[in-house]
């Protein structure tokens, strides 16, 4: 477990320094405190070790073996093959294509989602005073709509010809592409859909963060002649940085595991243009190549850990 532990030291940082001063370890009060802490921790730890940590350890072990579906009944057939699964995954052209697709999705989709979320939150917080809860609920509706229904509706929206999007584009004289049928427009279609589906979550969290921005700072800046954009840039954004960090970290973790949209919309097609790493991994599990699929999952984890660490570094609060 040494690899995952060191890789995640970074997110463990916030708040750690503010723990209570250490009590003398041997004192009676200290021992009583430790005992109470363990009583509180035990139920979680038992469930966590059984249903989370143990499967994680097994899957990590599995990634170094040639485990296949049929080996589950006969565990002694499994051979340890070192890093073979990892080299095999990295050498697989479809896996590389999936990695590129996922990068494309994250690089375009994440800023788009964050921008939509932030714009909606700022508009609801500072721009308007009425119907706030209507807009709040409305913008959150895609988040809570079941993916099954979302897929059906979006397939109709993206249809060519006759889909709602291309019909609307036709009104302004643009002939829209065959969204899901053309390899060059399939990923943009899924990015659109994912941003639509996910910006509500970010908006809710940004709205919460914005309540922490004191109005007096805005007034002071306005009196100094700062415009709306300048106030946003120099007053709101810096104070919002911790929230921004939280939203971008959780969005990145989610988007790097981008799975549901291609799974329900395209099955990775056309021509592998929307296959994502998570989806390819899922397929490998489906084919019973458990060792290989586990190795792929840990490659994703590795990238997530790096991206998370970078975000913590870039958006760290200056103390």
């Amino acid at each position: 477990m040494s690899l995952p532990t060191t890789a995640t030291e970074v997110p463990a940082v916030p708040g750690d320094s503010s723990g209570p001063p250490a009590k003398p370890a041997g004192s009676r009060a200290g021992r009583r405190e430790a005992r109470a802490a363990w009583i509180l921790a035990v139920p979680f730890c038992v469930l966590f070790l059984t249903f989370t940590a143990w499967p994680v350890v097994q899957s990590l072990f599995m990634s170094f073996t040639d485990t296949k579906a049929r080996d589950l009944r006969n565990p002694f057939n499994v051979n340890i093959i070192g890093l073979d699964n990892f080299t095999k995954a990295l050498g697989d052209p479809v896996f590389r294509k999936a990695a590129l697709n996922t990068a494309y999705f994250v690089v375009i989709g994440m800023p788009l989602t964050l921008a939509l979320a932030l714009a909606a939150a700022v508009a609801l917080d500072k721009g308007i005073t009425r119907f706030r809860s209507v807009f709040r609920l409305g913008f959150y509706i895609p988040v809570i709509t079941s993916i099954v229904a979302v897929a059906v509706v979006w397939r109709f929206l993206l249809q060519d010809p006759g889909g709602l999007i291309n019909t609307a584009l036709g009104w302004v004289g643009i002939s829209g592409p065959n969204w899901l049928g053309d390899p060059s427009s399939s990923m943009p279609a899924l990015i659109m859909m994912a941003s639509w589906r996910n910006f509500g979550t970010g908006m809710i969290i940004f709205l919460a963060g914005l309540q922490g921005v004191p109005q007096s700072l805005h007034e002071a800046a306005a009196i100094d002649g700062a415009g709306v954009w300048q106030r946003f840039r120099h007053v709101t954004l810096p104070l919002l940085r911790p929230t921004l960090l939280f939203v971008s970290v959780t969005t990145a973790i989610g988007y790097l595991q981008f799975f549901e949209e291609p799974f329900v919309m395209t099955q990775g097609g056309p021509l592998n243009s929307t296959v994502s790493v998570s989806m390819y991994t899922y397929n490998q599990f489906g084919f019973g190549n458990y060792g290989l699929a586990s190795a792929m999952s840990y490659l994703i984890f590795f990238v997530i850990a790096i991206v998370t660490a970078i975000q913590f570094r870039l958006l760290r609060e200056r103390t």
Partner: protein
Amino acid sequence: MSVDTRRPPSSAKAPDPIKTSESGMVGSSRNGHWWLYVILALALVVVIAPFVWMVLGSFKGEGELRQIPPTWWPEKASLDNYTQLFSRLSFGTYFLNSTIVAVVVTAGNLLFCSMLGYALAMLEFRGKKVIFAAVMTTLMIPGVVTFVPLFVLVANVGLVDSLPGLFLPFLVAPFGVFLMRQFILGLPKDLLDAGRVDGAGELRIFRQIILPLCGPALATLGILTFLGSWNNFLWPLVVAQSETHYTLPVALALYSTGQNSTNYGLLLAGATVVIIPILVVFLVFQRRFIEGIATTGIK
């Protein structure tokens, strides 16, 4: 780093009159910029269009749903899909299963995650750093990787095709611990000392002082956990093998995409019904929900 951002409700409301007078100063109407309402309303239409289409579609017949281009208003609205949903499928069973699983999972997370969150935030004990590091690590590991080992485990203890098999693995989640720890870190330490001076034990301090202050955080965690469990699809699809243990998403997917072709009407009616409990939960908790995230000490 965990700045305490909680404020009493009264001071949270205080800036409002100032804000309106300020926006009046820069020349917009008293209720905000009218053009912003126009943009937001247009955005709202775009955002909820699929949802509206889903609800309207649930009243259409199968033929109309397959029509190209699709229609908005039902040409011949009927409740057929709903009567079929409630009569042909044992909808009550699925609804009950989904509810039991979601409620148990939510209760488990609220209780166990807040307990550990309190210990991690306020108490000193050996192993604290290790536990937190393990929690954060598993937060970042793709869920799909533990799917097979978890299924093997659940199969070995004979819980496949049972309700406990559906909820036991999700009774605790790293996300909940992270959230509760961050929130409790923001609570003043004096509370703890006051309780200790009064001679209260750590567990009593947790139950009688800390928990009552965690309302917003618990509401946030409750909604997110309920939503996640309610919409969970892959795990119940694999674990619930007999019809009596199906949850709503599983039953809807299996029936509407049946042997021959997808029954869209049934699917849309089901999806519309499925969303109602979540809407209710969101509406009930949304005020606290927003407070909750604002006060998680994420800052």
